[in-house]
């Protein structure tokens, strides 16, 4: 939701980044304020997921230009774990499996690390167990998940719910959901969306990276951006998503090229 007195959380100017020497992001601009929900859409290979990983600090990506301010601070001065502790959260498109590490231990380690960063109380295993079970109920998650290894043997949908559970635990300022809808059946999509909606408030912001309109039926964005070739080429309200659903991306691209030609 757009609020009048909202604070700017994320300010990206002219962001360029490469992976294995190939330029993927070519001058990306976006501003996200607290309370807002943004959707970034666009065809495969347009750089949506790269943008998400660059923000989180994945070492495979090299930033070659531009700037990113997170709550007014230079994001690139922070190590990936410091970004996370500062409140930047990425729900992974393909959550990684960590055999041998119990999900409950992982979640508690993560929760307590972030709590400690903010000088807040850390929870012992018993206290944490109560706390996490409550959050799991929000997502209609089976409590068996706690005893299993992190993401190991989880179905696609279970992995995505586990991501949103972590979001619920860490209560980030800015949550980037990278294709969280892919691999979810319609029931799971509803549950995950409800979870995200409950977590959204006027102090945080959500960026949804997605291919499909269907997620946006459940989580209604304030802004829809279209990415192409490493840039955002169009930004509009939620109605843009519906238009993309019926007309595809080509017309946005053509419109953009025409506009560029007249400059």
């Amino acid at each position, binding site marked *: 939701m757009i609020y009048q007195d909202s604070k700017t959380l994320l300010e990206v100017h002219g962001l360029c980044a490469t992976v294995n020497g190939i330029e993927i992001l070519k001058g990306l601009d976006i501003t996200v304020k607290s309370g807002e929900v943004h959707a970034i859409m666009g065809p495969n290979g347009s750089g949506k997921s790269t943008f998400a990983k660059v923000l989180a600090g994945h070492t495979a990506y090299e930033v070659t230009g531009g700037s990113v301010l997170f709550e007014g601070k230079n994001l690139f001065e922070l190590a990936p774990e410091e970004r*996370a502790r500062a409140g930047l959260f990425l729900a992974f498109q393909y959550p990684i499996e960590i055999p041998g590490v119990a999900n409950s231990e992982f979640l508690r380690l993560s929760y307590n690390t972030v709590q400690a960063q903010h000088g807040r109380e850390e929870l012992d295993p018993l206290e944490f167990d109560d706390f996490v079970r409550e959050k799991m109920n929000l997502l209609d998650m089976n409590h068996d998940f706690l005893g299993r290894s992190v993401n190991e043997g989880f179905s696609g949908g279970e992995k995505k719910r586990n991501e949103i559970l972590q979001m619920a635990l860490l209560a980030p300022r800015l949550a980037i959901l990278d294709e969280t809808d892919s691999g979810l059946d319609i029931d799971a999509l509803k549950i995950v969306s409800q979870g995200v909606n409950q977590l959204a408030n006027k102090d945080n912001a959500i960026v949804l990276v997605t291919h499909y309109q269907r997620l946006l039926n459940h989580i209604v964005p304030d802004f829809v951006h279209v990415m192409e070739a490493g840039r955002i080429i169009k930004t509009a309200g939620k109605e843009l998503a519906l238009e993309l659903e019926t007309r595809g991306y080509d017309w946005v691209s053509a419109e953009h090229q025409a506009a560029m030609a007249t400059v």
Partner: protein
Amino acid sequence: MSAVLQDLVNQPYKHGFVTDIDSDVAPKGLDENTIRMISAKKNEPEWLLEFRLKSYQAWLKMEEPAWPNVHFPKIDFQAISYYAAPKQKPTLKSMDEVDPELLRTFEKLGVPLHERMALAGVAVDVIFDSVSVATTYKHKLAEVGIIFCSMSEAVLEHPELVQKYLGTVVPTGDNFYAALNSAVFTDGSFCFIPKGVKCPMDLSTYFRINTEETGQFERTLIIAEEGASVSYLEGCTAPAFSSNQLHAAVVELVALDNADIKYSTVQNWYAGDENGVGGVYNFVTKRGLAKGVNSRISWTQVETGSAITWKYPSVILRGDNSVGEFYSVAVTNNYQQADTGTKMIHIGKNTRSTIVSKGISAGRSNNSYRGLVRIGSAAAGARNYSQCDSMLIGDQSGANTFPYIQVRNNTAKVEHEASTSKIGEDQLFYFAQRGVGAEAAVSAIINGFCKAVFQQLPMEFAVEATQLLGLKLEGSVG
């Protein structure tokens, strides 16, 4: 990223100091006179000298094993001193008579010898170079009939027991290093748990090599009579020398009917430096004989030290329904080499064995699991389950699994599972994205990987093992 991982596992070795103490060191070299000298120093009976000389003759005819997946220059057995002992009174009446320098050494290593300061509930025998310097709680254990003392003392005080069991599980000519040990062994621990007695506390031996260019050849013998049970712990460290030191121990366990022996090791001998210079050659023969019906022998080992480890704690399952277990974590880094595993020899009916092996290789190290499961023709209904997992850190380390399975009874059931994994950049990034730095992430992954083995360790040791892995992981992170 793998550079970060390398830093994480390049831990400083905290036990590398040398104690400045007056020692009685034998001249280098080995012949019959050396053996007679050792035997005379210990006032040994004639039968033991004969045992030694017979072993020496067998050893002379043997070749070093060439099959392990380890590489090192040929050892010059004449360049080693076979006896070193701190100079002090020959017999100690109480702990107060122990050289204060020795007490300080062991306190520095975290092994307090004063009983009032000792960990509650653990009796400790301490071996410094070639001799046992102290045994705690000896008298308290004697009240329930348990004998816990140094091997040298057992030879003099309980010769009938030593003679009855010594060499019955690991024969003198069993292998090259066992034969050498049988010829020149100097000290070690002796435990005897009489019929029906459950040992009221954990027994522990702490081994320390101090003198350069000496070998440590200890001999441990544990006997649990009918219905007896004992949990035994072993820890080892050595100073950091640039030369290699030889450690060739033999451990024999005997479990009679319904007896239970649990043997746990945390091995942290000096591993050499980051270029592979120095370190202990750890060539050890450990074997248990589950002789009686329903007996159980369980080995748990955490192997983090030594330049080379060659070690296969094994169980001969002779009694019907007997149980053998082997739980192992072996961590290698830099240029360390480990070839370790177990042998489960099923002879009796309905015998069962479990093998859980976890190998972690970092740096340029090489870590091999080698295990034999043999089901004899009479072992009807025998069962074995083996699980061998390897974890690689970085891209220059190696892991191998060499399972040998021989089944001669068609009612037996043998299962073997193996896996290899790698701590990946993406796993560390996942942790980082949840606020957890690389050091804590690697620690969580490795502890998770080793959990099935750590659970088997007695409480005090589980803490030590976790800390030891923590030390291995201590390092500079970004």
